[in-house]
C-alpha cells in the first residue's frame, strides 16, 4: 500500500486538481506571520504594493468582510492581483502591444482582516484598463482572492471603481452579472480623506447585498 502512488492522470491524460482544504484559523502563521504575533522571515509579503518610483495614482483599498449574520470577520486572508497604471500585468503571458511593464510594480499583495477592527487595506495604484477576451477592453479592476477558516475553497471576486462609469458600462464581465442590481456589489466607493484617495470595498458572504463571486 505504501508504495502505491495516489496521484496521476485520468484515462484521457489529464491530472485532476488537488482538492482544496480550508486555510484554518492559523493561516496567518504561514502567510502573514507578523500578524500571528512573531517574526521569522527576513522579507515579508505585504499589503503595500507601491515603491517610491512606481508609476500611477496612489490609492488605498480598504473594507470589511461580513459573514452571514452581518458581523465583520477578523481572520480572513486577502490577496490582490492587478495590472499596472498602463494596464499591463507583470507576467510573461501578458503580450499586449504598446504597454510597458513597470519594474517598480509587481501588482500583487497580501494581508488579513484585522483581529480587532476587521478592516483589510492595501496601498497600491489604480490599474489601467486591460484588453479582455476577443480584444474588448475590460474596465480597470483588481482581482481579489479570500481564504480562511470556514472556507473550504478560496473565493474570487473583482473590484471595479465607481468613478469609471463609462468603462464599467462596457465591461463584459460586469454586464454578465444578472440581475443588474447585483453589479453594485463589485463597485468600490471613492473617498477623499486628508489627501489620500481611498476606495471602500466591503464584501458580504450572504444577505441582500451578497457579493458577486466568480468561478474563474
Amino acid at each position, binding site marked *: 500500500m505504501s508504495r502505491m502512488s495516489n496521484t496521476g492522470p485520468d484515462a484521457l491524460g489529464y491530472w485532476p486538481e488537488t482538492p482544496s482544504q480550508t486555510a484554518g484559523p492559523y493561516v496567518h502563521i504561514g502567510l502573514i506571520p507578523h500578524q500571528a504575533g512573531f517574526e521569522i522571515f527576513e522579507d515579508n509579503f505585504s499589503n503595500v504594493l507601491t515603491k517610491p518610483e512606481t508609476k500611477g495614482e496612489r490609492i488605498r483599498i480598504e473594507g470589511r468582510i461580513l459573514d452571514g449574520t452581518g458581523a465583520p470577520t477578523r481572520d480572513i486572508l486577502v490577496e490582490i492581483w492587478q495590472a499596472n497604471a498602463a494596464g499591463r500585468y507583470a507576467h510573461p503571458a501578458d503580450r499586449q502591444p504598446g504597454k510597458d511593464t513597470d519594474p517598480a510594480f509587481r501588482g500583487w499583495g497580501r494581508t488579513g482582516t484585522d483581529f480587532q477592527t476587521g478592516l483589510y487595506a492595501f496601498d497600491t495604484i489604480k490599474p489601467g484598463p486591460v484588453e479582455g477576451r476577443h480584444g474588448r477592453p475590460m474596465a480597470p479592476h483588481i482581482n481579489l482572492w479570500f481564504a480562511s477558516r470556514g472556507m473550504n475553497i478560496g473565493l474570487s471576486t473583482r473590484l471595479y471603481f465607481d468613478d469609471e462609469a463609462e468603462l464599467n458600462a462596457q465591461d463584459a464581465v460586469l454586464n454578465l452579472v444578472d440581475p443588474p442590481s447585483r453589479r453594485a456589489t463589485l463597485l468600490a466607493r471613492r473617498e477623499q480623506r486628508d489627501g489620500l484617495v481611498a476606495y471602500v470595498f466591503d464584501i458580504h458572504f450572504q444577505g441582500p447585498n451578497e457579493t458577486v463571486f*466568480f468561478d474563474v
Partner: protein
Amino acid sequence: MTTMPGHAAAGHWGDELIQRDRDMQPPAFTPDYKTSVLRSPRIPLWSLQSSLSEVTGPVFTPQELGPLDHDLVLNYAQSGEPIGERTIVHGFVRDGNGRGVAGALVEVWQANAGGRYRHRNDTYLAPIDPNFGGCGRMLTDERGYYIFRTVKPGAYPFRNRVNSWRPAHIHFSLSGQAFGQRLITQMYFEGDPLIPHDQILATVPNPADRDRLVARLDLDAAVPLDSLAYRFDMVLRGRRQTVFENRMQGG
C-alpha cells in the same frame, strides 16, 4: 504572423485555464464543518471564461526567500532544535497537463509536535516549543520539485463538535503561474487513525479524492539515522490547448 483581435490577450494558445472540477472540490457550504455555514455564499458563483486577469499571476524570485526558509527544524531554533519526529516532505507540483510547475511558491504552516500553533489565537494547553516557528516557504525548481524539513505535527482538538480532533496535518499554500490556479490545501500522514473521523477532510465529497491528500511514507527518501520522509505531490489547474486558434494565428 497575423495578429488577430484578442490574440494579444487571452484566446491565444494555452492561455485559458481548464475549468475547475467543482464536483470534485469541496462545496462552500458543508454544515458538518460548522464554521462554513456563515462563510459560504448562498448565490451560485458566476462562471467566467479566462481573461488575462486569471491566466497571469505574481512571479516570485529566489532572492525574496531566505536560506533557511524551507528548513523548519532550524528556521526558528533559539536554544536548540525543536522536539518531535524529524521529517522530510517532498514531491512535485504539476499542472493539469502533467507538466511540472516551475517557480511555484510553496508555503507551509503547521502545529508543533504537541499539536500547538505559535499563534496568538491558539489556546490549546499543549506547550509552545521555544525552538519551533511552524512555517516555511520555498520555490519549486525547473521540474516542479520541492522539498522541506520539519518535525511531524501533533494532532489537536478543535471546536466543531464537543470532541473533534484534527489528524496530524501540514497546511500548504500554492501560487503557480496564474492567479486562477491559486490553491490552499492540507496534507495528512499515511496511517493516521484520525483521518476517517475528520470533519474537514470529509468536506471533499469523494473518498478517492480525499486519499490524494494523504502523503505516503517514503523510506527511500529518508535520511538514515536522521529523518523520516513523506512524499506529497500536488496538481494545479492546467491550460487548455486550443489548437484551432493556434493554427489561425498563421504559425
